């Protein structure tokens, strides 16, 4: 064939796996997946095993050192690697980051809809307050999770075009959820509830839409139906995974307005996942910035937008063109995200960081508090006192 150049050979070698290596990986993966699947599929687990207690009573969800790994043929991908943050009741928490930084996987772990058996919650806990009881979702068996999913936590997906079933009428699809979680309701009650939900998301002709198929609706209308579905059981937490990315600006404004109003109406929390900083600024009370499976900075929206601290957050803000501020040239973060299979043991952002200094060669930085609500993982903010504590 073509005579291979040296440079090409060198590049190829980085991703090369020998037969025995891949055999080892496969053996390890099988072992791990079997172990976790066994745990997930247990029947008749006593409730005490996954009951937990909230650290702060005002929270709906507490992520505590969550680790979610994917056991792939090329090695273990640490998609979420030690994430902890809280979602307070009635507030909106925005999760920002580039694609592949683990923001979606965090929400999928919370719903237990990871692509199993490859994806598994390996350690850590997700405490969720259903109102009467507090469960640790990371330890919960799959069969019990069905009661929570859709009922107490619901999710709005990115693509309204593909997340509705094209062969069922809108009414049937919304009815199904209500029926599943409220078996005592009869047909008329369910239909009345569905129509009420459709009305709530400002669909004008709700009786008509009830009988329509998804293809008869526009993107904005479909996203409204998705929101109606997710609100049908008055959940305590709504996960909105890029709810407006596929929509136009004017429709996006409508949907964001709607989400904000509805959240107050049914008094639930929203976990908003997006890469659009504008949407976050508008909607969120608290912001979590993720990079390569870890949180690099978290704080209130004001703190993050007015005093961004981590170099990655600063870079992310500077790389987004904004109508209000004029810049000659956009800032672009140099380099790229490290390979998720082979994460370095120093700060993941070091190789792309313009402010790195001697200490950055050390282990991954701890969390440093800048204010009671604002914290970041960066050695720039490590003051002496904490240094002593770390040893």
């Amino acid at each position, binding site marked *: 064939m*073509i005579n*291979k*150049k040296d*440079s*090409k050979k060198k*590049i190829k070698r980085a991703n090369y796996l020998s037969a025995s290596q891949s055999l080892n990986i496969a053996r390890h993966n099988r072992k791990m997946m079997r172990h976790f699947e066994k745990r997930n599929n247990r029947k008749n687990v006593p409730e005490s095993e996954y009951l937990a207690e909230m650290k702060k009573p005002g929270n709906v969800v507490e992520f505590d050192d969550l680790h979610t790994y994917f056991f792939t043929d090329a090695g273990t991908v640490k998609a979420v690697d030690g994430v902890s943050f809280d979602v307070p009741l009635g507030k909106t928490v925005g999760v920002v980051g*580039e*694609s592949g930084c683990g923001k979606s996987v965090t929400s999928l772990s919370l719903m237990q809809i990871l692509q199993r058996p490859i994806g598994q919650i390996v350690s850590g806990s997700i405490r969720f307050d259903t109102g009467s009881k507090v469960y640790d979702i990371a330890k919960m068996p799959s069969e019990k999770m069905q009661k929570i999913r859709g009922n107490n936590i619901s999710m709005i997906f990115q693509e309204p075009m593909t997340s509705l079933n094209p062969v069922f009428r809108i009414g049937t699809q919304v009815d199904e959820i209500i029926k599943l979680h409220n078996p005592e309701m009869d047909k008329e009650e369910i239909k009345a509830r569905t129509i009420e939900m459709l009305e709530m998301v400002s669909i004008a002709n709700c009786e008509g839409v009830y009988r329509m198929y998804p293809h008869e609706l*526009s*993107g*904005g*209308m479909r996203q409204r139906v998705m929101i109606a579905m997710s609100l049908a059981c008055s959940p305590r937490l709504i996960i909105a995974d890029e709810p407006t990315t596929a929509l*136009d*600006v*004017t*429709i*996006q*404004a*409508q949907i*964001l*307005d709607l989400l904000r109003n509805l959240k107050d109406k049914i008094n639930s929390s929203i976990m908003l996942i997006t*890469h*659009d*900083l*504008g*949407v*976050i*600024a*508008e909607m*969120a009370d608290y912001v979590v910035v993720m990079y390569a499976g870890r949180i690099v900075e978290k704080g209130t*929206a*004001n703190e993050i*937008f*007015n005093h961004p601290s981590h170099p990655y957050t600063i*870079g*992310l*803000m500077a*790389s*987004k*063109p*904004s*109508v*209000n501020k004029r*810049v000659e*040239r*956009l*800032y*672009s*973060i140099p380099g*790229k995200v490290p390979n998720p299979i082979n994460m370095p043991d120093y700060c993941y952002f070091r190789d792309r960081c313009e402010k790195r200094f001697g200490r950055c060669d050390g282990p991954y930085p701890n969390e440093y508090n800048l204010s009671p609500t604002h914290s970041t993982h960066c050695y720039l903010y490590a003051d002496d006192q904490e240094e002593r504590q770390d040893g």
Partner: protein
Amino acid sequence: MADKFKSTRIVDDYTPIVHNEENILEVVQLKKYFPIKSGLLQRVVGYVKAVDGVTFNIKRGTTMGLVGESGCGKTTVGRTILRLYEKSGGQVLFNGQDIHKYNAKEMRDLRPKMQIIFQDPYSSLSPRLPVGEIISEAVREHELVPSEAFEDHIDNIMNKCGLQPYHKDRYPHEFSGGQRQRICIARALALNPEFVVCDEPVSALDVSIQAQIINLLMDLQEQFNLTYLFISHDLSVVEHISSTIGVMYLGDLVEYGSKKDIFANPLHPYTQALFSAIPVPEPGAKMNRIVLEGSIPSPANPPRGCKFHTRCAYCMDRCKVEEPLQRELEPDHFVACHLYDQEPEKTS
């Protein structure tokens, strides 16, 4: 103020404008209708008026941004200008020549001069060709570069677009989204074009990658003196890169002018609503948001009169029957709206 509005000029239907040397592209009343076929005999029962009378021109070495909601005909304008679609009416002058009158041979000679960068870098590259071949194929076909300088030319272009020479032997699936978009840009620029249509080149990319690609496009524009038609629905990106902006709604160009005029003083109610809907990355920023009710009507059956009247807050009786004409309200700032017809004061 009042004087400014009196000096309005109606842009006439289909008067071919005199070619101005400054302009690389002049578009007059461009129309593109797609037939709707139905029944056993596939008879034409109607038309989707994707582009319905669009007039603008682009100066050499500048960037025109074209914004609008999805389905408003932005992409169709771009493709009809390049004659990837045959027009239904109107005129496209490229360097003063009506390209829709060219025959196949002339068109082929013209093709290297006008190029396009597509939205989705995942589907616009052939998965079976190595990257070097993707970039160099058209250059070889058009015999633009003598064979001894060929490799150097390709290396040079790849280098300018941030690709390494050893990438040549790799296949597109080995690259990330941002890298693929660089390949698409290199493919377009290898032909030494004068005019490039960028059809949502950054929509499929992450924020930090977006910035890289936008910077690259702007650097290349400076180096090669390129002219861009930048199609996007992301207003903040368009605002950053363009010097003139056209706002489209349902096949019509409702407002068109320099970036400064349009952002400082949006005149058409649709433009005002569109700009107020841009999320600002500043928490607690006070916004007087105009939320448009309903959604964009079907272009197969557009409303009579002004196409925007179904969603317009300033709708008058006249808007429902009479289609507004494009007027020049300020120098180089055109708007198609009845609000500015005779009376300077706005009816609110």
